[in-house]
């Protein structure tokens, strides 16, 4: 199976044109396989969470906290759902025709792409200047948490660190989606002058054929990668034990008990009004 497709330029050179769409099926298969494997594992594994007695003790200790703890502000939630809608439109318009459902997809695709790019720009500004920027990233400081989480997954009672504002899996996912999303968005924006949008003057020649080939390959790789990533994201969003996180992305808050059960107050300090502190204790 050829993973990349090549074409001949007017100058007789072989240039990249696309990724092979077999990769779409591979990504779809990988996403579904992950879903089945993880769901099976969760059915039979002995993963541990913080015992009720420990959470009770924490509730007594943090009784000054309000019942509702803000997890996502309105702007962050609006960004998330607008981005999600744009992402679904992009993936369906890109891959349904490959799967055999034929329709005029290009206009929907570029319009959704513009919405996605605008929402990403907004998110970058919002996260950089108005949110705790580093709370979503992973780094060496997360190794003890990774070790503790793995041990818990294998059934051990481990007293090690719990999550900060975002669970480790959530942050790893964010890192992957940043690379895939930015890869697809940046290359997609580059492609806008190739089609008739009415936004810019058409000029398909402002990059060389070989550079276009790389642009299309990156766009394609990011796109097929997003298929698997979005399947995983939707899967976790609807899992019963993760539903409290999904709900917080709709309502904006979690309960005090959920906060204490799943998070390390020292890593995600919350003030008496239920809002997250500007800097986390472990990052200040």
């Amino acid at each position, binding site marked *: 199976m050829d993973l990349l497709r090549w074409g001949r330029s007017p100058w007789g050179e072989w240039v990249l044109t696309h990724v092979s769409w077999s990769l779409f099926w591979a990504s779809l298969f990988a996403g579904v396989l992950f879903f089945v494997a993880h769901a099976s594992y969760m059915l039979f594994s002995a993963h541990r969470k913080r015992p009720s007695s420990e959470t009770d003790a924490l509730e007594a200790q943090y009784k000054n906290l309000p019942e509702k703890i803000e997890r996502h502000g309105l702007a962050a939630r609006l960004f998330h759902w607008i981005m999600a809608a744009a992402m679904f439109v992009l993936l369906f318009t890109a891959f349904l025709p490959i799967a055999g459902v*034929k329709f005029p997809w290009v206009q929907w695709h570029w319009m959704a792409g513009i919405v996605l790019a605008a929402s990403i720009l907004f998110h970058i500004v919002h996260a950089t200047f108005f949110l705790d920027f580093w709370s979503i990233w992973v780094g060496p400081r997360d190794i003890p948490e990774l070790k503790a989480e793995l041990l818990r997954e294998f059934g051990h009672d481990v007293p090690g660190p719990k999550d900060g504002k975002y669970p480790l899996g959530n942050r790893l996912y964010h890192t992957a989606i940043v690379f895939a999303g930015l890869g697809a968005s940046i290359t997609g924006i580059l492609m806008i002058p190739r089609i008739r949008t009415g936004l810019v003057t058409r000029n398909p020649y402002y990059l060389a054929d070989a550079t276009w080939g790389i642009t299309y390959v990156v766009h394609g790789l990011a796109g097929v990668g997003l298929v698997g990533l979005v399947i995983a994201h939707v899967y976790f969003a609807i899992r019963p034990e993760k539903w409290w996180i999904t709900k917080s992305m709709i309502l904006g808050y979690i309960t005090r008990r959920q906060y204490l059960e799943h998070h390390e107050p020292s890593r995600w300090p919350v003030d008496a009004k239920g809002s997250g502190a500007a800097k986390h204790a472990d990052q200040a």
Partner: protein
Amino acid sequence: MAVIRDVMPVFELYQPASIDDAIKLLDKHGTDAMVLAGGLDSMDWLKDRLKKPKAVVDLGQIKELKGIKELNSGLEIGAMTPLTEIVRHPVVRDKFSLLMEAAELVASPQIRNQGTIGGNVSQDTRCWYYRGGWTCYRAGGNICYADTPTSVNREHAIFDADRCVAVNPSDTAPALLALDASMVIRGPKGERVVAAEDYWIGPGIDITRMNVLAPNEILTSIRIPSTMAGAQFYFEKVRDRQVWDFPLVNVASAMVVSGDKIEKARLVVNAVAATPRRLKNVETAIIGKARNEETADMAGKMAVEGAQTLRHNAYKVPLMRNLVKRAIRGAGATWTS
């Protein structure tokens, strides 16, 4: 650019004697197979070595695909019926002379003897960038070489371009659409009948195909209902060389006129988009109006609304406008042998 070598690539030639056998072969070979009807389009691809199928399925031996039958006051034309036979058929001349005129203007007499109606309506586009062997969108690439600031695109689309600006070059396609024909398609799952309007597809739907035929399907026949039998027809084709050329623009119209009022009309223009363009807005506007200069003028203006020209094909706008006007007026010469 393509270099004609006159030595075709190696392929397995199959000459099935029945439609079922042809479909089995196409189903077996999938996209590695090429269907050969009259061969006039296919041979170019093969001799230029731009398409290298592993199997060529020649439909020439299938008798069921040939001939014209009268059917419920209409006609059923086998897809492998030569264009000359259609031109000479008495019922076509008597009731559906629009198709006769269109078929008679296809290429040259020799080509009409060999070329089939199925091949003519299903032929590939003539865009020379695409046929030159460059990997454009239609050839599976990521660019349209005909739609750039420096392209030579005199023959290309003024409507419905979606990345690719190639046009449908058929003369019989607009006539069939004006006659409200339907296309009978057979594949491994059986027969399906598609309205002519839905047979051709633009690049927005599938940029690598001109029609709905899947690799394992064949067009078996074309049915023309009696809806427009004996109506007032008009066909005109403008081309660079009168003796033998593809259309720059052609127009086909079928009208039922009562007194001086237009009661029913179907107008189709081809070679302005990747599919024959039925002018529904014009048809609606002219119903109930007199067939006169005023109506023709209005129709011509309406027909070209929304046209988007390329660097070298702006002339197609007044050309199309005037052809539609002439179709409404019914003026202009018709050429019959």
